[in-house]
């Protein structure tokens, strides 16, 4: 049955319309959860506000468990769902660079758009920076092409890597997420910040 677009249940143009509806949901949820505030986002790294951690991991485990149950009921064929390819080196280096960008700029691209939509000017500056960063990457592409394509591993999933059933891995991730939430709420009490 699913994914609907792969099985040609909906047309490519409908898919784009749905993309927009999904985007509206995405933006709405991000904004209502407070992701339009850079100080709220950055608070995660100082322990005074762990909203990011909670929303991020709750979303990840919700979608994961949903996909696994959909697959179990035969509603979706997981082999047709896009799995991000793994390039070991670039995932690590890129992740580290993004981490630095996150703590310096206070946004990630999705939240910056969300913040821009309610009039945050620092988000506009951040998006300007994003454009520059992307141009910098594309213009200097020959310089980092080797790094970009190094250590390609195909599209492995965590459970394949660990060689355990994916349900077991999912359960482990859920337990790990709740452990992190618990630590997060403890940190919020320990490092309170009043005004922001």
């Amino acid at each position: 049955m699913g994914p609907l677009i792969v099985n040609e249940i909906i047309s490519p143009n409908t898919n784009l319309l749905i993309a927009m509806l999904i985007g509206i949901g995405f933006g709405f949820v991000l904004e209502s959860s407070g992701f339009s505030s850079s100080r709220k986002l950055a608070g995660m790294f100082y322990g005074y506000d762990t909203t990011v951690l909670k929303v991020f991991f709750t979303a990840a485990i919700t979608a994961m468990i949903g996909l696994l149950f959909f697959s179990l009921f035969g509603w979706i064929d997981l082999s047709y769902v896009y799995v991000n390819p793994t390039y070991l080196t670039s995932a690590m280096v890129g992740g580290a660079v993004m981490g630095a960008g996150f703590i310096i700029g206070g946004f990630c691209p999705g939240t910056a758009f969300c913040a821009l939509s309610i009039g945050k000017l620092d988000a506009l500056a951040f998006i300007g920076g994003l454009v520059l960063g992307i141009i910098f990457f594309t213009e200097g592409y020959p310089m980092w092409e080797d790094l970009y394509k190094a250590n390609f591993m195909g599209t492995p999933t965590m459970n394949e890597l660990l060689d355990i059933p994916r349900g077991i891995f999912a359960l482990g991730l859920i337990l790990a997420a709740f452990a992190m939430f618990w630590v997060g709420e403890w940190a919020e009490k320990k490092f309170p910040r009043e005004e922001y």
Partner: protein
Amino acid sequence: MSEVKKTKYLNPYVGGVLLGLVLLAANFVSGRGLGASGAIKSAVVTTVSLVMPSHVENSAFYTEYKESHPGNLMKSWLVFEMIGVLIGGFLSGAFAKRLKFKVEHSPKITSKRRIIFAVLGGVLFGFGSQLGRGCTSGSALSGMAVLSVGGFLTMAFIFGTAFALAYFFRKNWI
């Protein structure tokens, strides 16, 4: 965190479940996760090919990108999704009465400093998202939902580096 502010935003767990359902819907309907930086890349490539067509022909990246993405780049899933994000964010901000032009920064720093750091962070994030094939939403969040090794790795490195560097930039936020 005062009580008044607390009620203004959605409970993070409720927000997380809702975000997870949005992500699930994206996977169910379109067989893919969410994303953000890809839309900016589409816009950048489109603009560059309009302004400097000859440059696009000679650049290795643009040639590769165009080969793997035939057709009109702006008519892509991510671009439409990001238009939706702008609408959705605006609606939520309008309901919660948060619409306001402002530069948000710690009382300890000036707006100018905040803007400079925002641009700097944006440059790093833009570069990193291209190198890492996706940002927090596209690679880390969507990747984790489908249990991709790359997603977990990127997520760990984003948050790990941010934590490691947090001390040096504390003045900007606290």
